[in-house]
């Protein structure tokens, strides 16, 4: 999954005469396509390694699934039963996500904005925080499903035969002098030696963040060993900002144009 290739995706069509565009033609075409894409201007993302990050690679996987289905529909190929995706995706996209994809009008992945590792202290549990900016969602789109994705690597010998209890919380309220108020979203028992992507359903939390941005205080993740000892997420093998690019944590949300139309006042 770490290689990044675009073979076979929309490359020059055989038979099409390619003619280099004149400047004004290029400008006209850019304007036309931006209007169809519904964009006021061309985006200028901050891309240090962006294209090879986990989120774009995951989205590229979804894109390949979607475009191969579109191609088969346009070319009238035999319809595959919906329950079986056209291509068995590499481990990045699961069955469930492919089902969300079929139903969605748009999918967005969000960059993790912050990441705090609080040091262990008797009073405060060791945990990792994540925040996502959901303020740029186009109007009229409603979240039908959202996931927080975290990659877990194999751990060192110290915990080899142990199990971890991983908990994901929604931060409800931050307190200056003590621990934040938290709402437990999910707790999951894992083998310490387990490796791969972990997906956590945060649909309800994401909808709350979209409807009420002031409540978007992020997520917290904590890990305990089977003996109840809290350990750092890094020791538990959870990849953070300093890990491999293609294993960075991210969030993905599936949208559908919301049918609810607010009637204007007469």
């Amino acid at each position, binding site marked *: 999954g770490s290689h990044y290739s675009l073979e076979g995706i929309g490359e020059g069509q055989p038979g099409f005469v390619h003619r280099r565009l004149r400047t004004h033609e290029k400008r006209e075409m850019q304007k036309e396509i931006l209007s169809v*894409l519904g964009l006021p201007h061309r985006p200028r993302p901050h891309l240090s390694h962006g294209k090879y990050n986990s989120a774009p690679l995951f989205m590229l996987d979804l894109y390949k699934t979607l475009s191969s289905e579109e191609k088969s529909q346009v070319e009238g190929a035999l319809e595959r039963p919906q329950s079986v995706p056209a291509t068995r995706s590499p481990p990045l996209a699961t069955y469930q996500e492919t089902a969300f994809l079929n139903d969605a009008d748009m999918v967005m992945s969000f*960059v993790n904005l912050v990441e705090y590792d609080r040091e262990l202290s008797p009073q405060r549990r060791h945990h990792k925080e994540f925040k996502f900016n959901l303020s740029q969602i186009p109007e009229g789109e409603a979240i039908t499903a959202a996931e927080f994705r975290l990659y877990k690597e194999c751990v060192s010998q110290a915990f080899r035969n142990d199990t971890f209890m991983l908990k994901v919380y929604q931060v409800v309220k931050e307190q200056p002098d003590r621990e934040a108020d938290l709402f437990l979203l999910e707790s999951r028992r894992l083998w310490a030696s387990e490796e791969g992507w972990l997906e956590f359903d945060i649909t309800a939390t994401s909808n709350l963040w979209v409807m009420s941005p002031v409540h978007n205080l992020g997520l917290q993740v904590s890990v305990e060993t089977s003996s109840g000892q809290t350990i750092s997420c890094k020791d538990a093998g959870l990849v953070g900002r300093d890990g491999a690019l293609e294993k960075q944590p991210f969030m993905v949300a599936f949208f559908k144009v919301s049918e609810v139309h607010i009637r204007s006042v007469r």
Partner: protein
Amino acid sequence: SAGGKRRHQNRNRSTQPQEASRGSGQTDYNSSNQKTACKRHELYVSFRELGWQDWIIAPEGYAANYCDGECSFPLNGHMNATNHAIVQTLVHLMNPENVPKPCCAPTKLHAISVLFFDDNSNVILKKYKNMVVRACGCH
């Protein structure tokens, strides 16, 4: 003016007797035979050529196509004007200059999905329903 047009064609005919002599038969007002009729033209849009490869992840480009060519009243085989347009034509027969002007435009559009970065480096995968021209016709 219809008469005028015929007179003009008669004059043409006199200058091209061979074609006339071949008995062109019924006059085709759409004259699509002489001019390029309304049809779909191939156009491949390369996002790379547009300099957009930094924010559009996939596809690298796509066959967009476009419609171009002549349309005129009454419509020929490409007829797909709405009844409204036809009624307007009949109503304006007394003032032919005011008839609605037909144009060659897409009649069928298809969707493609585009994967791209937004300004905040978030990635968006969206289906756009009217990105590919599949068929053209006179409107």
